[in-house]
């Protein structure tokens, strides 16, 4: 992204220029704004308009690391943050692998992150688009109410500089609309949601968001709790994206180096069914989490992680790469100015197969279409691989979709589920998540219900 934001770049450069001999400094400076509009029953319930900025400074000296941040770019605060980060160095343990990233010659893949039309979109238009989504959702089905309809947009500018020669700055903006739905039938209420993402509001597909919001809530009306059994599941694209996202930590070079990955010491081995190929590719312009640089300022790149079922690689930041005597794959993650970089996947995608979800359902014959999962954070352990999640969806009987079911769990282990993948669908959906979605058929999971 080079140096598109000169004033932030200048702040970062100025901090780094203060490095003492033998001291490594990284400055991460950012600024951003958001608009959040919530519509309820045709009126604006809230309108949030806000800007924020901040700086995070990492100092490394003799193998020890210190960090500090502040939610301001005032001159006095910058000096205090640098002082705190330097002071914090004293309390770290010497780590022979500690260090900053250095330019590695890998070229960035040019992409568009900024949309002038969104930046100029009038406020009234943003309110109108959310009101429009609420109207369309209510019109989609008479059993449907809305709990909230939201328009959200945000813009951000970031600059990073290091004593090792990294200097990058850039900016981006994006927007989305979403609706949370309720469907009633007597005493029973079920919930759903719909959303649409775009570079600007012109990209929104409001009809699809409204229809999905209405469908998700109404299709569960009358759902029953199924009997416990072993079964085949078809994961809806939205569920697959969450399932794939869980694998991010197991594929992190840092977790591998620290002995916390189910894939440790398994490079080159079969870890999944032959139909499964998984890549991390933030250079794909369709990925929601696309980026041209990683959290340390290195070029983002395409990395093959699992190829035809065989484990081919892990993702690395400069730290995990040094520990495992390899090169960074451009996979430093960063949550903003308030924290240092981590290591993880940036934009995961399973290679699509050739058949639609309907064709997969017909082939499965008897099983369950899982349309939603809950409690992934509480029932999935990426270290042990134990997998158990709440679920709802539709029964698959005789190769067709049948009655809705809810309040059950599906369970297996991550290791076994990867080997039990029977087929991958062709229905790629670029969801606003770290992984793209598509339908996935997995054999032999345990369904727990009545």
């Amino acid at each position: 992204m080079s140096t598109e934001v000169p004033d932030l770049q200048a702040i970062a450069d100025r901090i780094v220029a203060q490095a003492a001999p033998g001291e490594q400094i990284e400055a991460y400076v950012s600024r951003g704004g958001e608009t959040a509009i919530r519509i309820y029953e045709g009126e604006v319930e809230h309108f949030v308009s806000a800007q924020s900025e901040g700086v995070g400074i990492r100092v490394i000296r003799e193998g020890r690391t210190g960090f500090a941040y502040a939610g301001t770019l005032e001159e006095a605060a910058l000096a205090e943050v640098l002082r705190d980060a330097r002071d914090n160095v004293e309390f770290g343990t010497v780590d022979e692998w500690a260090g900053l990233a250095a330019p590695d010659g890998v070229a960035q893949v040019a992409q568009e992150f900024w949309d002038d039309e969104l930046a100029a979109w009038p406020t009234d238009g943003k309110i109108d688009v959310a009101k429009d989504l609420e109207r369309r959702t209510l019109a989609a089905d008479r059993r449907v109410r809305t709990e909230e309809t939201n328009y959200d947009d945000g813009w951000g500018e970031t600059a990073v500089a290091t004593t090792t020669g990294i200097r990058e700055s850039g900016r981006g903006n994006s927007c989305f609309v979403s609706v949370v739905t309720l469907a009633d039938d007597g005493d029973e209420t079920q919930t759903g949601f719909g959303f649409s993402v775009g570079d600007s509001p012109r990209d929104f597909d409001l009809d699809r968001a409204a229809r999905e919001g209405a469908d998700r809530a109404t299709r569960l009306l009358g759902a029953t709790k199924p009997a416990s059994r072993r079964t085949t599941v078809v994961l809806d694209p939205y569920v697959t994206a969450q399932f794939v996202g869980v694998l991010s930590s197991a594929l992190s070079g840092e977790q591998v180096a620290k002995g916390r990955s189910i894939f440790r010491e398994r490079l080159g081995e079969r870890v999944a069914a032959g139909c499964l190929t998984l890549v991390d590719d933030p250079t794909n312009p369709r990925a929601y989490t696309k980026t041209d640089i990683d959290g340390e300022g290195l070029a983002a790149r395409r990395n093959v992680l699992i190829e035809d079922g065989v484990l081919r690689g892990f993702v690395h930041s400069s730290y995990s790469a040094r520990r495992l005597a390899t090169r960074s794959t451009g996979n430093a993650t960063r949550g903003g100015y308030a924290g240092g970089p981590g290591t993880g996947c940036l934009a995961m995608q399973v290679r699509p197969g050739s058949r639609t979800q309907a064709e997969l359902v017909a082939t499965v014959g008897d099983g369950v279409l899982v349309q939603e999962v809950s409690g992934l954070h509480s029932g999935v352990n990426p270290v042990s691989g134990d997998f158990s999640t709440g679920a709802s969806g539709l029964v698959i009987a005789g190769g067709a979709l049948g009655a809705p079911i809810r309040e059950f769990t599906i369970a297996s282990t991550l290791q076994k589920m990867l080997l039990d993948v029977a087929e991958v669908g062709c229905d790629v959906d670029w969801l606003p998540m770290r992984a793209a979605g598509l339908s996935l058929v997995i054999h032999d999971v345990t369904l727990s219900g009545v």
Partner: protein
Amino acid sequence: MPPTISADASSLVAHDVLERVLARGRATGAAFAEVYVEDKRSTSAGLDDGKVEQVTSGRDRGAGIRVVAGDTTGFAHTSDLTERGLLAAADAAAAAAACGGGGVVQVTLGAVRRHPVNTVRLMPDEVGKARKVDLLRRVDAAARAVHGAIVQVSAGYGDSRKRILVANSDGVLAADEQVRTLLRVSVVASGDGGMQTGYDSMGRTIGFELFEAEDVEALARRAADQAVTKLSARPAPSGSMPVVIKCGSGGVLFHEACGHGLEADLVGKGASVYRGKVGETVASPLVTLVDDGTMKTEWGAIGIDDEGHPSQRNVLISDGVLTDYMWDYLRARKEGRAQSGNGRRQGYAHLPMVRMTNTFVLNGTATHDDIVRDTQRGVYVAKLGGGQVDTASGDFVFGMTEAYLIEGGRITEPLREGNLIGNGPQVLREIDLLGDDFAMGNPGTCGKDGQGVPVGDGQPTLRVRALTVGGTAA
């Protein structure tokens, strides 16, 4: 002359400036304006793989300004606490609330109100970082000493000192200082069957004196024991069965099964399975559920909520009958009733909404051992993980991170992790035994609408007659 605000709060924003900013917020005719000022300093330190990886110092300082006109809330925030910065934010919030009308408005604030719940003896920012880092080294050593199977330990220390000042156009002026200190440890054990994890944490709304009262080595050993025990665990069963939940392990059950559903914002939109049920029996008569922000030193304890209202003790369910919901300013105003001290927000950049504080179930009369003895076959959960709820349908899940089989009235073999799933109102009715051994659980962070706030939970040992266990074994 305006009343004097004592040193801590007046250093944030002066009394007369607050009055002018509130008046500006209402200048376009809005009925209500509010300024929330926050100044937070935090320190955290992380140890992993035997090394103190990083000590972090943080400073978050700013103000959020809320303007309410009709049913519309406008909100803006700024990190610029000068009068100019605050007035600009007030203009932005008023414009966002976009109402007509107008005119000159005067706001007069009363004296600052304080309702401290805790006494902090050792302010965390007055304790040397070396002592904080040393805790991590002690935790690491203690965990590794438990068993040769322990292959990895990660530990985290965190403290924060947050001063808040809330002023609104009704004349409320309130200040609070909220101090939190936390230590957590996560352990990996490796055996023939793969790896297992153990976790434990301690946290209080006090300062560094926490570690005088609490044994950090014991915390580390508990996490290590949990991981080692699970190495020999068998897969959890699958299906509906009696579940005994140990005291202090799983207030999260109530947090998810009914806590969120009793938040007035969700109730008001008809998005709670408990809507319209006040006065009705919604739980077993054994259950009395309380949310109490005044519970000294507990993780969810606050002097005032983030709308300046004093925290209080609210009985939500009494002997199985729903008595009240939890309320914030907006929802209470709409219903013409009093707030309940549950208006909370993550920080100055966030709007307040209805949130829990410390949520717990009071003691029953059964003993722990009787409850286990009375259960022929089931699951005993010693430690719960997080959870998630769909408040409209009432369906919720929560994870079990340490659990055992109960066979013939005895706790037997350890089980691997999994989720449990149930429906809130049904599960509350299925509670058939309630113990006399009340204990609070681990410090928690509750997420709602993208905002995290610290909460506590607690409960005595109890039994749910039938709950679905999401394991893989027959």
